């Protein structure tokens, strides 16, 4: 085992500093004035066209990276003393509420602030909604046919024995989707919590898996590994658009919806451009573009019309907003009860 040490050493001596110097000492920091740094919670295929439109409209380049809501918030918390970004973009209001508690955001009221309904804005402007996202039932068509079922049209339809061990939905410990779902059940039961939990306990044997993320069950339902699930409409319509044979339906008793938001980071390095992005995203300028890019969010701004085919899906649906005060006051208790009585009885 003889080794030509000098050759190895020479190669290492030449290459290492070169590689180090070139690659590592010059990270291309986006310091130009006309660049805004963003963490996007929206998936890249929706965020990218929006940001490209923003650049076209304003000449400001958006430098962004995508994280799930929990990861994005954990990062912003960890970077609190030396923020890396100016704006946190997209993601459920819930995530932003948690960020407000941690003191991560700077209050800012964009021009659209006054036009928005109260549930689409934080009273002091610590976050502002850019879209609305209702829950839906999504079922696999092949599964429905095999079991001679119609797409579920009531919460009680999901209790049928045919669904035994075939439903996937999100876990309330980690997912805003799940919290919205649980408050939907409480709401349709007239805020009678005991009755709502009775229902959820009855549903439990039919649940194959409580997934960590809100959309975690969409692929299994699309593939037919699970028969049905409860998801946000964007995830469900996206599954359908990918070519999976799924049906989307709404319960006649009604189902909840949750807003998506944007916020300015406290201590942001480029607050001025960050505010420009917020101005744009909260206005019809951005929300009017959802349809063009097949982004199936419901616009938050009242002046933007809902895209016709999405409006068609939503036409017969009974959708109600989750009361923010009620949910905020009861969330922890309800989730704890869900863990104790439904998840681990």
């Amino acid at each position: 085992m003889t080794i030509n040490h000098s050759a190895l050493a020479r190669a290492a001596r030449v290459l290492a500093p070169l590689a180090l110097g070139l690659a590592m000492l010059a990270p291309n920091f986006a310091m130009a004035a006309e660049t805004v740094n963003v963490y996007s919670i929206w998936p890249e295929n929706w965020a990218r066209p929006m940001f490209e439109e923003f650049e076209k409209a304003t000449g400001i380049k958006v430098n962004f990276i995508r994280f799930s809501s929990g990861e994005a918030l954990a990062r912003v918390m960890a970077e609190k003393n030396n923020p890396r970004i100016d704006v946190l973009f997209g993601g459920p209001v819930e995530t932003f509420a948690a960020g407000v508690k941690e003191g991560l955001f700077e209050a800012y009221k964009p021009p659209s602030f006054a036009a928005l309904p109260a549930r689409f804005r934080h009273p002091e402007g610590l976050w502002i909604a850019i879209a609305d996202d209702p829950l839906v039932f999504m079922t696999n068509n092949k599964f429905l046919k095999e079991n001679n079922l119609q797409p579920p049209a009531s919460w009680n339809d999901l209790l049928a024995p045919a669904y035994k061990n075939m439903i996937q939905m999100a876990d309330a410990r980690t997912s805003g989707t799940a919290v919205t779902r649980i408050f939907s059940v409480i709401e349709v039961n007239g805020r009678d919590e005991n009755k709502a939990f009775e229902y959820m306990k009855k549903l439990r044997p039919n649940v194959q898996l409580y997934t960590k993320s809100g959309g975690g069950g969409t692929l299994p339902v699309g593939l037919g590994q699970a028969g049905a699930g409860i998801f946000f409409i964007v995830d469900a319509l996206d599954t359908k658009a990918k070519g999976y044979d799924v049906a989307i339906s709404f319960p006649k008793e009604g189902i909840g919806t949750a807003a998506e938001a944007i916020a300015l980071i406290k201590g942001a390095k480029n607050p001025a451009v960050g505010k420009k992005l917020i101005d744009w995203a909260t206005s019809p300028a951005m929300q009017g573009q959802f349809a063009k890019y097949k982004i199936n969010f419901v616009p938050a701004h009242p002046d933007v019309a809902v895209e016709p085919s999405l409006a068609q899906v939503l036409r017969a649906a009974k959708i109600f907003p989750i009361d923010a005060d009620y949910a905020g006051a009861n969330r922890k208790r309800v989730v704890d009860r869900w863990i104790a009585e439904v998840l681990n009885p």
Partner: protein
Amino acid sequence: MMLSRVLSDGEGGFTFSGIAAVVTDRHHVRAFGNSLLLATLVGFIGTAVGFLFAFTAARGRLPKGLLTWIDAAVLLPLVSPPFTTAIAMIFSFGPRGLITYDLLGLKNITVYGLSSTLFSEVLTYFPIAYLTLRPILAAIDSNLEGMALSLGATRWGVFRTVTLPLCVPGLANAFLLLFAASLADFATPLILAGNVFPVLPTQAYLQITGLFDLRGGAALSLALLFPALGVFLLQRYWVGRRHYVTVTGKGAGQVPFDSIAPAMRVALLAACAMVAAIIVYFYALLLYASLIVALGANHAFTLQHYRVIFTEGLKAIGDTLIIAGIAMPLGGLYGLLLGYLVAKKEFPGRRSMEIVSMINYALPGTIVGIAYLVAFNDPPLVLTGTAFIIVACYIFRYGPTGIRATVALLQQIDKSLEEASQGLGASSSTTFRRITLPLVLPAFFAGLGVVFIRSMTAISATIFLVSLSWTLVTVKILENITELSLGPAAAFSVLVVAIVFVVIALIGWVLKFFRSASMPVTSLIGGG
């Protein structure tokens, strides 16, 4: 080392009350028990499977072509992010799985739970055991076995009383590595464990990303350190009591002989082939998914996914290659030097240095990632947003494989070899360079290979370290999976597999100029 210190200090300050909370929560206690059970099973079964492959490869007298194929199949699981295997598992063994439902017609199958998590983790991690054990088996002088045989021992007797005992340091090290890897793995259980089998790393991840509770997550993760440390100390105690020197410098020419009976050889080969076939099936599925429009919906052939990754994904591919290219040699050196220091030198704090180096490895990646982020976001040392932080994380997190391999190999080398060199007037640095270094090179390449592979495939820690300037292929894969774009995710994975294999082949080719003995290319990272 500095990094590790910062880590353990930064995390250690506020955790005692947190740990108390963990101990009292009944769900967490259950998750803790599950983690231990899973890690122990993965440790035992993974080491056994790894040993089976290493033994077959080292003693089976296989034709070189076959050996290369087995090597390649064994390396596959190491080379791909665990998410993809987990999804292939669900697709194949789920309630409407390709195998369970379409092929076997089974209904009401539950894919979520201990058995599938165990299956997937063993398949993912046994190559580490293989890589650790192969050089050790190769280093055992087969004359020893030959002598035992000629002294009248049966083949089984030789295996039991000579071969196996000599492998003890390697087996213990492999077990430790697998145990720690399973303890730290959150991705596989995230997808496969389901609600009936919660484990602690997943709980810690959820505590942070779901409940936004950094502190609680850190406390949960730190609870995982105790079993890892326990196994580590046990392993030290067990291995440390005896001597395993087989490389004495007095070896004569190796006399080839048959250490296994022909029937046994067939059985071993069949067992290896079966495991390899399962692996190949999973990756064939992956390749297929990358070439069709959408798995399970539209199976028309398309190259669209590859077009996507070579346009939108190009930056991530470039960044990943640069970072992996830098981390690889540094990580190999780190493993070699630290392993050498730990095994051969006496100095104060040696043991704590060894332990601290293992902490990076045994902690769940989520915590390591956040700890790095917190530690290096503020002056004096601002590294977030640079490639440095990712490289550092890779070196310190995956270097320990090299450390363990070096330590295990050095325990086989007789000290008299070095003493002879020094006795003949060579300085201690010359001795290291001329005697020890060539002997531990297999371990160096094992460490180097693992660091490179992990640099290409790691996800849990780096998700917190990628930045606006530096992104990674694995983060793209995860994103595509969460977006339901299995096609691009599969295409990225196939690309990662291809790159790793090309790089390993390249290293092998370059090394041929340095080494007199030719060897199968992939045995490189196994030592050979």
